[in-house]
């Protein structure tokens, strides 16, 4: 078959489709979004009725995928790294239940925080969940891992975690496809109690999982994704994980002088590691993200063979790897001939001209700054987080999805007035609703603005789970309908908007204001595709 030009994300999607996928479950998040979008657009998805709708959040996605696996079918779960925090409860427990149909979880990490709040390394999740993990170094490997990974998952009876990073997720290269496999039929576990994690059963299953670790290590030792390449210079041995391997080889086009152990599958392959450590004076670990492998090799006391990497300053502790930092780590230098002229200014992203969030912030800040100087605004994650920048300088917090409502509540509990929350519609249905219920139950004195652009704009305009039903959801959770106010955020409505904001701040209880106007980018895209 000829090669197809695919993003790392698309290679994953295509591999899953070719491997007989029955459903993808995901919530959008950079850099994982394109996996699900590719599956949604693929003709086979409709032909074979493969599940592909966006889920409300990563937890619901993970759970639904485990349900798909329960009936013996192959399921894929995709999320950005912080999504793992949301899905973690089910994820960690799924290692103990094990799976029936193949289940692969993709966690797309974002070292350097290109579009994230942190750079947590998802390999730690796989590690303490005690399941095997993949970390591809290129698009073809990502394809092969997923294509064969479902079978591997079924053979082990365990979910598999694949850790991606932004650079690979969003880089395009030629990928060769394999033949299409059929979907699994329905089948169930022979053990009727496999998925019942009552303590008695969980303890049993956990012991089994522990006992299988050697088997997982053996699989890593035999894995085609872990390769040992000898080199003549034994002063240094290099462990290169995922795309760290590419940056290393970029600096050695004729082959590396040092022995190199390339890692693509975890747990770490013991045999090859011993081989490297026995034959080399020192070890250098190249891994994108946090020093996951380095810590394991170094140990707490740091006794034994010298291990270099991010912890001893050979590489920076934060930020993604790149060909230049890896060059320095092996004593080379990629010299810049020119520097950035001092006149070059930063060009941060800003809310689009004509965006409804702008109208919301303009009116909100006018009311708050002039009339309520003691106010604080707890915001959330989405396009509207850009309200942090000039000219708005409107918000005081942005922490994790849903935290606007609950932080406002906590601050109000502590005596702050006015405590205002600003949250988007997709973030509200992702994890704002439960916080709103807390507010209602205590009649917290908060003013919640759900800035509803009827889409998930930040990640490229995916469907939003509650579109058309936001006020019904609020009312259903118990917000007094007279304090659910809907406005159209447009210049001509500024006076009305300001009046509503005033009234609802004055109301001592839970109020929800919903400025609603579709995102102009999503609107334009819809028009183009018509």
């Amino acid at each position, binding site marked *: 078959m000829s090669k197809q030009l695919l993003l790392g994300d698309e290679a994953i999607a295509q591999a899953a489709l070719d491997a007989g996928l029955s459903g993808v479950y995901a919530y959008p998040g950079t850099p994982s979004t394109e996996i699900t979008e590719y599956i949604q657009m693929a003709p086979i998805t409709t032909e074979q009725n493969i599940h592909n709708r966006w889920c409300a959040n990563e937890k619901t996605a993970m759970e639904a995928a485990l349900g798909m696996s329960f009936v013996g079918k192959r399921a894929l779960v995709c999320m950005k790294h912080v999504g793992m925090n949301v899905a973690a409860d089910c994820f960690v427990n799924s290692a103990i239940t094990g799976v029936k149909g193949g289940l692969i979880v993709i966690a797309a990490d974002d070292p350097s925080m290109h579009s994230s709040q942190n750079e947590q390394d998802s390999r730690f999740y796989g590690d303490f969940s005690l399941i095997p993990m993949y970390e591809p170094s290129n698009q073809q490997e990502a394809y092969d891992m997923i294509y064969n990974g479902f079978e591997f998952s079924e053979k082990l009876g365990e979910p598999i975690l694949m850790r991606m990073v932004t650079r690979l997720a969003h880089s395009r290269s030629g990928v060769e496809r394999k033949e299409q496999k059929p979907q699994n039929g329905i089948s169930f576990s022979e053990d009727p109690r496999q998925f019942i994690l009552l303590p008695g059963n969980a303890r049993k299953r956990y012991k089994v999982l522990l006992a299988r670790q050697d088997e997982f290590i053996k699989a890593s030792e035999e894995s085609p994704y872990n390769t040992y390449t000898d080199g003549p210079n034994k002063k240094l041995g290099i462990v290169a994980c995922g795309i760290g391997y590419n940056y290393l080889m970029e600096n050695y086009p004729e082959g590396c002088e040092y022995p190199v152990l390339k890692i693509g599958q975890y747990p770490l392959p013991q045999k090859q590691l011993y081989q490297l450590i026995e034959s080399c004076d020192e070890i250098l670990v190249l891994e994108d993200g946090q020093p996951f492998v380095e810590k394991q090799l170094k140990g707490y006391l740091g006794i034994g063979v010298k291990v270099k990497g991010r912890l001893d300053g050979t590489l920076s502790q934060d930020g993604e790897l790149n060909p230049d930092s890896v060059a320095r780590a092996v004593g080379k230098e990629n010299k810049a001939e020119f520097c950035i002229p001092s006149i070059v200014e930063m*060009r941060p992203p800003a*809310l689009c001209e004509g965006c409804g969030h702008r109208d919301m912030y303009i009116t909100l800040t006018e009311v708050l700054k002039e009339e309520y100087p003691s106010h604080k605004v707890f915001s959330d994650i989405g396009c509207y987080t850009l309200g942090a920048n000039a000219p708005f300088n409107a918000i005081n917090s942005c922490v994790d999805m849903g935290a606007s409502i609950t932080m406002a509540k906590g601050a109000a509990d502590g005596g702050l007035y006015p405590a205002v929350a600003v949250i988007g519609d997709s973030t509200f249905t992702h994890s704002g609703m439960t916080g709103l219920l807390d507010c209602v139950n205590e009649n917290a004195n908060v003013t919640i603005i759900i800035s509803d652009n009827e889409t998930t704009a930040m990640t490229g305009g995916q469907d939003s789970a509650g579109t058309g039903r936001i006020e019904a959801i609020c009312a259903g959770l118990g917000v007094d309908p007279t304090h659910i106010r809907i406005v159209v955020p447009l210049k001509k409505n500024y006076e009305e908007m300001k009046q509503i904001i005033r009234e609802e701040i004055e109301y001592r209880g839970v109020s929800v204001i919903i400025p609603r106007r579709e995102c102009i980018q999503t609107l334009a895209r819809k028009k183009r595709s018509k």
Partner: protein
Amino acid sequence: MKKDIILSGVGGQGILSIATVIGKAALKEGLYMKQAEVHGMSQRGGDVQSNLRISDQPIASDLIPSGKCDLIISLEPMEGLRYLPYLSSDGWLVTNETPFINIPNYPESDKVMAEINKLPHKIVLNVDKVAKEVGSARVANIVLLGATIPFLGINYEKVQDSIREIFLRKGEAIVEMNLKALAAGKEIAEKLMQ
């Protein structure tokens, strides 16, 4: 054959469409390629870039090392300057001359031009003006692409074929306009190099 290219501009200007054309042409030549894109917040006027690597040998890194880039293609003059540490000593900057001003502290255009003029190898052209002359402001990207033809290392006919394929579904007139834009850019670059 090995070409390391950085494409730069402002979100929404459409640098990725240039990458698509080059990528398709490179595949036609049977070359290896890797193209690292920026996704995410690009629709809101921030800076965007893409690393495009083409070679007749397998390519290791998705990112271009410092000082190794052969060609910076920029739809905006200040954005091209942002990636100068990657440019090799004999590399070229091919840039649009019209600034995209959406920040309050955008430097004076003269100063931007002065910095560009310090470079040993550059092509500066007004792609928007040329595009309008050819028929539509929408082909500005292709004019810029045309101006890179002398340094691209990919056969001109292959680039033309790639444009034909990509724009085919939009009709013959659109294909022709894009080919004209490509030729116009190429001609300007060739003149400037003389």
